[in-house]
């Protein structure tokens, strides 16, 4: 190969095309072909000997726990004190919030927002809290807040050290990764009742369930932040004689701060995602009100506390991570700048004064005159939507028609096909895709996950009296795939729009926040009404929840494309469209793939919500562990694990797509 250049040869090797490359393909093709033939030749169904007895094992453990929950030392001297401590934390936070009264809490939010992110965050944080007061859901909102604050603090105390550890040890990262995936995707309904046995009712199990859900982003983003500290900064630290410990404190953590803050934001969002489920265990919070509205089929009554949850999330988000949104416009009012110490004093002083005034004036509840009941309006709006979108919409025919098409022409054929495929063939094909995406290791890992689903055993029910979890997994897979395709098809164009227009991004932001945090229970009824009970409604519920991260990350990816190559393209006469297609989108590829990857995990995390509107499959089996724990905890755990395995397979393969084509190092 002639590399004669004046400036010396590059030591990088060129990609190999041509004969040598072709030969390398023969082995894998032959291997997968052979495997496929074997897969078709052997039993098309999962053989019964593969059942490792997980269901019985889980149920036996569960029953042991039930029998010994009041006597064994593990409860009396470990879990009960732990539970008491958590309860004490929640009630202490409540006590503080109650002592501050609502004016003090408003001032507190504004003060924190001001200190962390400036006046805009202070205003938006304060306004969001004021809106909660106006909606007349202040008391339950404070309960929710106390649970959140406790759970988020615990999640950080666990997550940040684990993140530090995983950032320094690849081995630790590999080991933890499986646990984190499980924690994020395993439906909470599977472990909610067991957690109740360990931690009692009301706040402690709610906190624990939330922590389980919220730890993964804390670990991941801490690790990511620390790992992306430039080497030169570490060298600087070392050259000045930092100990490993000083290095962490003085160099790495400060430099990773923004990523860790993003982690905090994700932790909060994740925590809110589970708040309604946690209130099934007896917390008198916003989630409980949502459930009560749902129980009466009163969308408006469920919407108001749901909106309260959204506002609380928005308030916490704005005041905790305001740093990321530096204002572009000059401030309307210029405040005198004060140093940090004075600022803190002013802020705290405001809070104290507000609380003191509230106490002196004996302000307890929000005056009725200030509150608004919007549930009626919401019900009218929902009624209109239900009356007008279900049928008789021009061209598309309405949501009923969409549902019928989805179920009859897409979901059912796809499900039948996947179930019909010999199970090992599915394993081989997925392994083949994994091999093409990354290599042997991934192929082995993915086949292992799918084979593990084969070991989960069967459950009663179905046409033959027993249904193997493999078949249910294929049912779930068919729904998940369809939901993913729809989500991506909606999210990509919106993400591109948000990435190119500040205005679009501003308009979309509250909707995305709402879609991500609004408890799905709130919109289950309209979705049910529009799409009818069944898989169509399930897909829609998943899509609503799953598109925000994809929109966000696509937009972010486009915005982060360095300007130089874009400018170069423009200077060569690229139209706006050409610049998007030829430069921005390819350069944002990783970020977009990450968005799609997040969407996939979100869809899988909502499998159980889909089951609540009639999507059945793994989600329903997992849910039954909550409704009939003694009989069904085993199969519920098996279904939950199957969901986790599916998630890992889809996650790893799409992640490989995001990294493999080119190492997109920037020039």
């Amino acid at each position, binding site marked *: *190969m*002639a*590399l*004669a*250049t*004046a*400036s*010396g040869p*590059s030591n*990088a090797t*060129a*990609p190999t*095309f041509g004969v040598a490359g072709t030969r390398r393909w023969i082995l894998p093709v032959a291997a997968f072909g052979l495997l496929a033939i074997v897969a078709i030749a052997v039993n098309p169904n999962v053989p019964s000997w593969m059942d490792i007895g997980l269901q019985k094992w889980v149920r036996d453990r569960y029953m042991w726990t039930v029998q010994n929950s009041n006597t064994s030392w593990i409860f009396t001297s470990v879990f009960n004190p732990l539970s008491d401590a958590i309860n004490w934390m929640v009630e202490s936070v409540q006590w503080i919030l109650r002592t501050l009264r609502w004016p003090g809490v408003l001032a507190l939010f504004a003060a924190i927002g001001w200190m962390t992110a400036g006046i805009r965050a202070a205003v938006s944080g304060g306004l969001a809290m004021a809106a909660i007061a106006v909606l007349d859901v202040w008391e339950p909102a404070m309960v929710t807040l106390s649970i959140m604050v406790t759970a988020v603090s615990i999640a950080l105390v666990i997550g940040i050290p684990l993140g530090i550890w995983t950032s320094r040890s690849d081995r630790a990262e590999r080991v933890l990764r499986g646990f984190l995936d499980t924690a994020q995707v395993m439906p909470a309904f599977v472990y909610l009742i067991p957690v109740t046995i360990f931690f009692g009712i009301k706040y402690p199990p709610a906190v624990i369930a939330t922590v389980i859900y919220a730890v993964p982003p804390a670990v991941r983003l801490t690790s990511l932040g620390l790992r992306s500290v430039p080497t030169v900064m570490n060298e600087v630290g070392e050259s000045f004689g930092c100990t490993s410990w000083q290095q962490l404190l003085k160099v790495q953590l400060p430099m990773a701060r923004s990523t860790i803050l993003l982690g905090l934001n994700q932790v909060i969002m994740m925590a809110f995602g589970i708040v309604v489920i946690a209130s099934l265990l007896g917390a008198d919070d916003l989630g409980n009100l949502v459930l009560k509205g749902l129980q009466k089929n009163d969308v408006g009554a469920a919407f108001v506390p749901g909106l309260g949850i959204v506002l609380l999330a928005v308030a916490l988000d704005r005041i905790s991570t305001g740093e990321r949104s530096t204002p572009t416009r*000059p401030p309307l009012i210029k405040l005198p700048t004060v140093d940090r110490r004075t600022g803190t004093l002013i802020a705290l002083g405001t809070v104290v004064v507000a609380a003191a005034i509230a106490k002196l004036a004996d302000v307890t509840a929000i005056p009725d005159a200030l509150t608004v009941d919007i549930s009626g309006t919401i019900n009218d709006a929902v009624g209109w939507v239900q009356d007008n979108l279900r049928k008789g919409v021009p061209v598309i025919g309405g949501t009923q028609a969409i549902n019928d098409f989805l179920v009859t022409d897409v979901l059912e054929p796809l499900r039948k096909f996947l179930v019909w495929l010999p199970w090992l063939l599915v394993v081989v094909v997925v392994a083949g895709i994994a091999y093409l995406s990354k290599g042997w290791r991934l192929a082995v890992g993915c086949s292992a996950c799918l084979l593990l689903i084969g070991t989960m055993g069967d459950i009663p029910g179905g046409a033959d009296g027993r249904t193997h979890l493999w078949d249910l997994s294929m049912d779930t897979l068919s729904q998940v795939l369809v939901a993913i395709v729809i989500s991506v098809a909606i999210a990509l164009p919106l993400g591109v729009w948000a990435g190119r227009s500040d205005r679009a991004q501003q308009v979309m932001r509250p909707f995305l926040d709402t879609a991500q945090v609004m408890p799905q229970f709130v919109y289950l009824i309209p979705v049910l009404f529009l799409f009818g009970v069944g898989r169509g409604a399930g897909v829609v519920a998943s899509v609503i929840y799953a598109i925000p991260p994809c929109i966000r990350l696509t937009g972010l990816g486009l915005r982060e494309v*360095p300007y*130089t*190559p874009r*400018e*170069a*393209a*423009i*200077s*060569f*006469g*690229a*139209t706006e469209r*050409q610049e998007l297609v*030829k*430069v921005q989108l*390819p*350069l944002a*590829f990783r970020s977009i793939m990450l968005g799609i990857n997040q969407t996939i995990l979100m869809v899988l995390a909502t499998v159980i919500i889909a089951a609540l509107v009639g999507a059945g499959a793994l989600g329903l089996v997992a849910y039954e562990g909550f409704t009939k724990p003694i009989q069904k905890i085993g199969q519920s755990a098996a279904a939950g694990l199957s969901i986790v395995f599916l998630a890992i397979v889809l996650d790893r393969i799409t992640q490989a797509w995001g990294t493999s*084509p*080119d*190492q*997109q*190092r*920037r*020039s």
Partner: protein
Amino acid sequence: MLPAHGDLWGASVTDPMIEVRGLWKVYGHRAERIVGSPEADLPRNELEARTGCVVAMREVDLDVAQGEVFVVMGLSGSGKSTLVRCLTRLIEPTAGTVRIGGVDVTKADDQQLLDVRRHKVSMVFQHFGLLPHRSLVDNVAFGLELQGADKAQRRELAASTLELVGLRGMGSYKPHQLSGGQQQRVGLARALATNPDILLFDEPFSALDPLIRREMQDEVIRLRTEVRKTMVFITHDLSEALRLGDRIAIMRDGRFVQVGTPAEVVLNPADDYVRNFVRDVPRSHVVPVDAIMDPLGDGPYGGDIAGDTKVRDVVGRVATTELPLRVIDPSGTPVGSIDRMGVLSVIANEDL
């Protein structure tokens, strides 16, 4: 034709390839009101405090002749990058006109503008601006692709252009596999591939090692002599400006302080700012003999020498002969003479 303010620093060329008149760039809310107003003369801080606007470039006039290398030199923040971007409206100028090859770019519609960018002007960027997801061939072929050339044709052309810049056979590499110098060669090849009339260079070599930088400068000199492209070259490096430029514009605070040939700038700095800049430049490196020659005498002469030869390059000649040398212009006509004393006086005054 001549602008009223009479500032003709750059406008001294007949039938220019690039013609810029009264070009302004002001950032901020309602920027156009600043143009030409008394406020524009306020110091930067005061202007920003009073109006929220920042003047990046003010009242630039400039003509570049066909085949000329015009260098704009200034420190960072002087407005030189803004100027080069306004030429093809990568940055929209606030006021003024730009004509390129007779087309008024500032009034062009979208299609005309694309046409100028695709066919007439190419640009080489400081940070290369290569597309990391494309191979070198596809990077070089980018402009052709936008022109609508078919794949085989543009690849062939791109491959031969790569060869021209010394990257033969590396077409399937990705940018990140290359060194910085090699990457900028690709950037250069990309600009050349569309065979434009005009090349714009925005500090193209400032990120490169000195040796590589010199090599690349040689490349530009070669382009000037071999293909006679019109070039506008932005740099903050005075020696680079002196080496490459037919004419140099010194820019400061958004305006041209001086425009002239390297010798003019070095010998007659317009103000203290420029004087400070050129203080350390050895005169003999930039002064051509025809700038310091004596009137033609009776002879005899020790030989003939071209008028544009730099003084330092005649040191050897005058050292070997007692006789003065005869200076001839490009047409071969004798125009003056230079002797040992003349050369020595230039060199002796260098450190003043």
